[in-house]
């Protein structure tokens, strides 16, 4: 009955290669089929997730367009053809029901207490302020670091001033997080006492992203004003 017991050392090379080859073919088919079968649903899920996140920070927005801001200063709509230059930054333009620009949303990231804190913030180009933010991903301590979304004093930091300097190359004032209770300027973020590191991450994430993005898009605002 047991062939292996009779001839223990004589597994032919061909048998091994045949089994591995056959198996790779079966497994390859299964993987490709499941990838293609779920592709549409996965892309749709990703689109809905982005849309929901943008609508949360720009409450008046009813539709969004995805753009890339290249280092040379141009903005190109994603999916409209043309290649993105290296170093381009993605941002979302939110439009209200009448097709007017309601705000611009972009991602920012900075090191928090546990890991990187990734946030999405809304920029109001008319007022020159960061209107609000939401968390995209964070591993901050529950009950401490996640206070940034509920703490009333912290949320009162917004709208946060983010005006460009006269030469339109940088922000007029760097957005900084200051110790709880010592905020004096509209571009400072008043930290939550006890969650200073996470508060600082929010300020830094907004500052780093705004310093890069705002000089690039502010000369192009006319192109973004109406939904194309």
């Amino acid at each position, binding site marked *: 009955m047991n062939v292996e017991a009779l001839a223990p050392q004589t597994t032919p090379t061909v048998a*091994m290669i045949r089994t591995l080859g056959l198996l790779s073919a079966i497994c390859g088919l299964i*993987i490709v089929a499941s990838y293609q079968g*779920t592709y549409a649903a996965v892309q749709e*899920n990703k689109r809905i997730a982005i849309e929901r996140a943008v609508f949360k920070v720009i409450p008046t927005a009813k539709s969004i367009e995805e753009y890339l801001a290249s280092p040379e200063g141009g903005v190109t709509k994603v999916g409209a053809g043309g290649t993105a230059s290296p170093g381009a930054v993605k941002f979302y333009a939110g439009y209200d029901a009448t097709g007017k620009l309601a705000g611009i949303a972009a991602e920012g990231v900075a090191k928090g207490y546990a890991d990187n804190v990734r946030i999405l913030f809304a920029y109001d180009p008319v007022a020159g302020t960061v209107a609000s933010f939401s968390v995209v991903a964070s591993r901050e301590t529950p009950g401490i670091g996640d206070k940034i979304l509920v703490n009333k004093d912290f949320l009162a930091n917004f709208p946060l001033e983010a005006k460009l300097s006269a030469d339109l190359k940088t922000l007029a004032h760097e957005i900084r997080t200051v110790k709880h209770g010592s905020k004096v300027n509209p571009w400072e973020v008043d930290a939550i006492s006890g969650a200073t590191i996470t508060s600082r991450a929010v300020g830094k994430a907004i500052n780093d992203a705004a310093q890069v993005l705002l000089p690039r898009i502010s000369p192009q605002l006319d192109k973004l004003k109406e939904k194309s």
Partner: protein
Amino acid sequence: MSQSPPRTWDEFMEGIWRQNPVFVMVLGMCPTLAVTVSGVNALSMGVATTFVLVFSCGLISLLRKLIPKEVRIATYIVIIATFVTVVDYVIQAVSLALYDALGAFIQLIVVNCIILGRAEAHASKTPPGVAMINALGMGVGFTIGLLALGTVREIFGAGTLFGVALFGESFQPWVVMVLPPGGFFVLGSWLLFFAALERRKQRKLAEATQNA
């Protein structure tokens, strides 16, 4: 080698009680401790692992006479990795929020020792039907283990069960329960509970034999 119906039932129950992967064999501790911060996470992780277990054990059992023992580990891992990839895509298609919550632990099902252990110790020696039933039992047992941790941690650490608030506004969550140490506390408590049950059973048995 009699194939009576009780044996099938026995194969199924093995993973749920006698050889429960979490509480008896203490296998697969990495997802057990890491993802069980809520009931939903625990249930989805359990279902995903069960799916991979059942299908990879089925395929391995089907091919068991074709697989030379020299390349068996490689073939098992390829088969397991295939079904993990399928689960990965399916979870992304079902819910991105769930996908983010489970994080790297979906991909890490590949190296879950329960699955490779079942493949090596069971599926490679039994026909597909029996192997899949045994794998299903193990998967359900693993899911029960995860749920036992996940529900307790969610109730204490967030005051909710499957997202439904259980207590009033005044509830102050016991935050450590949803942090990594909480996983160890709850697992330890469950192991203590089962060890106490086992000891009581043995004492009763000893008393019964003494009296007889």
